């Protein structure tokens, strides 16, 4: 059976019927002819088993295994297989014997058992395989997600240009380092580093090269300060976090390593780009400090390093910082102090050396600070000049002096004039003349009762504006005095050009009068007085403390004196009492 005359295998009538029965019950990955050949082979196995003695049921299992292995794997395929074997196998193959029904039943039972078993195994294998695939896919998806999360986290925490940690990551790490739960003895340090004049690199080479120099600098920094965290805060500012410092020396060493790493020129695109840096160092115990404190201190210290000329480091100094901070606070409080009326004026007499009469008074500003008490001008005028608040403050002093002086009347002739200091910024400000003019109109103070004191430095400008303003003021009849004459450049040229009416000679020339070494001072004073008189100027000597000094000054020919000998600065009431 199954062997055609030409030797080619070919399916018999039973195998063909079997193939027809199972075709289409599931997808068969073979041609119909291949299916017939397979089933012919299985037919031969079954026929042999039915003939053999004893009946080998394992043949039934084997046939079932092969069917399932060939992907003949449906319930229908089993049903039709049982049916076609039972109906046709014995007849088509002529397998008659006494116990054939019995043998057939047992063999079919073995086929059905083997098929169910093989199909179950195959199903379980396939289920397991697809679950494994699903799990793999999920694991891969999670890995991809984690990788992309990690990428996003990195981007969120790093500077895109240099790939250094950014401000966010630095803030996190600093907060963790300063965390209160850390041991109380733990110390921490910061190096706040800024490249000196980096803008120049950008300006001369362009931003592209500037950026690449920044990247190179960042890489060097990172290597130089390892394992400490170095972050780019933006621009050309970096910060190194030194955790678990054992003392200032640790952090200074880090700063020096950083400066050394940056000292070699970077070659970018054939350009030698040399950068230096300044570092502000702060190092302290973790207990009692905060990230904000540390950063602020490091920032101030960096500023000190910069003002010291750059290319170096500065170490935080609490005392210096305290002073600067106090000055800062005081300066910031000036506008509110003006608004709340915390400033007031004292007046110091300017006394005639000829007859002892009160010629004028100098207005001196005081600040009744709510916390610090009454402050003298040396505590706050410098600050106000630095910040520009002097314009506002000086304007108030001028107005207040005019307002008070207009009420002074004298029973014995001309009431005293009031002398007010004008700061450089006030003189250089356009609109000064207008301001003074309207002030005089508003208060009714005669111009000749107002004297404006300017310093020599006011005139040290190439601009014509201040000179023109002073001329206009002098033309109104206002007196113009040069304050502290003899301590600055004492440029005689402006005595010729300016409408000055008086020289106030600095107290240091007066102090030495009547002592053996005072000969030079006395000669200088005498020359100044004769020079002034030759130019039609009057001379007031400042800092007159004794009667002897007053005597000498009078002998020299000096016109007026100011100082403790003639009266300390006092309230307007005292002045009024003096002129009545």
């Amino acid at each position, binding site marked *: 059976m199954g062997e055609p005359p030409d030797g080619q295998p070919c399916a018999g009538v039973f195998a063909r019927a079997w193939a027809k029965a199972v075709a*289409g*019950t*599931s*997808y068969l*990955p073979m*041609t*119909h*002819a291949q299916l017939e050949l397979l089933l012919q082979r299985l037919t031969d196995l079954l026929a042999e088993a039915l003939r053999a003695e004893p009946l080998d049921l394992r043949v039934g299992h084997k046939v079932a295994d092969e069917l399932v292995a060939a*992907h003949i*794997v*449906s319930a229908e395929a089993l049903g039709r297989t049982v049916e076609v074997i039972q109906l046709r196998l014995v007849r088509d193959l002529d397998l008659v014997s006494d116990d054939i029904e019995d043998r057939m039943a047992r063999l079919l039972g073995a086929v059905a058992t083997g098929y169910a078993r093989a199909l179950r195994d*195959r*199903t*379980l294998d*396939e*289920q397991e*395989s*697809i679950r*494994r*695939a*699903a799990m*793999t*896919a*999920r694991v*891969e*998806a999670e890995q991809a997600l984690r990788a992309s999360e990690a990428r996003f986290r990195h981007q969120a925490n790093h500077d895109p240009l240099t790939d250094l940690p950014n401000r966010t990551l630095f803030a996190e790490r600093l907060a963790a380092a300063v965390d209160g739960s850390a041991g109380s003895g733990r110390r921490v340090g910061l190096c706040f580093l800024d490249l000196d004049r980096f803008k120049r690199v950008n300006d001369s080479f362009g931003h592209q090269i500037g950026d690449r120099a920044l990247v190179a600098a960042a890489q060097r920094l990172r290597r130089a300060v390892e394992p400490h965290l170095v972050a780019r805060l933006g621009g050309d500012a970096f910060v190194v976090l030194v955790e678990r410092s054992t003392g200032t020396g640790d952090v200074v060493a880090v700063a020096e390593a950083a400066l050394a790493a940056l000292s070699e020129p970077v070659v970018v695109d054939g350009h030698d780009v040399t950068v230096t840096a300044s570092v502000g160092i702060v190092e302290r115990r973790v207990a009692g400090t905060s990230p904000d404190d540390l950063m602020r201190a490091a920032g101030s210290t960096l500023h000190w390093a910069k003002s010291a000329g750059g290319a170096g480091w500065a170490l935080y100094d609490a005392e210096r910082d305290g002073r600067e901070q106090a000055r800062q606070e005081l300066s910031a409080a000036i506008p509110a102090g003006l608004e709340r009326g915390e400033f007031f004026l004292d007046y110091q007499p300017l006394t005639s050396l000829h007859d002892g009469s009160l010629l004028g008074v100098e207005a001196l500003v005081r600040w009744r600070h709510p916390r610090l008490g009454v402050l003298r001008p040396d505590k706050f005028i410098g600050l106000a000049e630095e910040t520009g608040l002097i314009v506002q403050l000086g304007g108030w002093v001028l107005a207040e002096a005019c307002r008070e002086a207009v009420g002074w009347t004298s029973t014995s002739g001309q009431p005293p004039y009031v002398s007010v200091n004008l700061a450089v910024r006030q003189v250089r400000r356009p609109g000064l003349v207008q301001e003074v003019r309207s002030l005089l109109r508003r208060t009714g103070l005669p111009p000749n009762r107002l004297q404006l004191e300017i310093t020599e430095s006011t005139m040290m400008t190439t601009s014509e504006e201040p000179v023109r303003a002073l001329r206009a003021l002098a033309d109104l009849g206002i007196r113009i005095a040069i304050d502290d004459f003899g301590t600055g450049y004492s440029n005689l040229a402006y005595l010729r050009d300016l409408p000055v009416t008086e020289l106030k000679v600095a107290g240091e020339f007066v102090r030495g009068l009547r002592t053996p070494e005072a000969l030079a001072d006395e000669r200088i004073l005498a020359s100044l007085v004769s020079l002034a008189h030759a130019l039609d100027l009057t001379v007031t000597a400042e800092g007159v403390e004794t009667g002897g000094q007053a005597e000498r000054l009078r002998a020299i020919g000096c016109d007026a004196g100011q100082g403790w000998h003639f009266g300390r600065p006092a309230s307007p009431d005292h002045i009024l009492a003096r002129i009545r």
Partner: protein
Amino acid sequence: MYDYYLGGSHNFAVDRATARAMVAAVPQAPLMAQANRAFLRRAVQFLTDAGIRQFLDIGSGIPTVGNVHEIAQLHAPDSRVVYVDVDPVAVAHSREILAGNDRTAVIQEDLRQPDRILAHPDVRAMLDFSQPMAVLVVAVLHFVSDDDRPAEVLRTLRAALAPGSYLVLSQASDDGRDEAERAEAEEVYRRTDSPLWVRSRAELTGFFDGFELVEPGVVWVPQWRPETPESAEDAERAVFLGGVGRLGG
């Protein structure tokens, strides 16, 4: 779902539930799947007979039984096959099955982004684009909407092929369907993640633009070079139209 119709167990409860719903709507659904798979088998055999040794099977799904490499390597052991599928589970499963077969590769890409497929390093490593190959887009185009420009996708693939290459296409078609059946089948697929875009014979023929269709052209898949005359009977019940085109020159 497809695997379930083919009699496999590489499937999940949700697939089986959808598959059974589909059978309720379209009783011949398993037959469709089987006919389509048989078409793939005959087409790959035709291609190996024609001397093709490189295959790019896009939208290969979960390869269960009768995979391209099994058929091709049975006839021509030096055949190389790259499987492409968008579904990560299908890709993971393919990798498992193909482990150890160094003439196959699997990549996770989308048919709608043919440039990415063509540029993929694994594809470039396995297939030589200077030599003819077969691109198989079998039983997957009906998942590509017109908005995703299937014709353009196929043009992009064609442009990368050497003369003498082949394109095998099959997809669900509503040619000769009645309205009720069409609506019901579409409704079932709409409830899955994969809406169905059935197309006419003319549209499918249009996708072969630039190729010469080999005999018998675009037909119901059982009619494509059937092994026996009986197997092509009632061919439109298979729902899938298919065809093979050759790039001339």
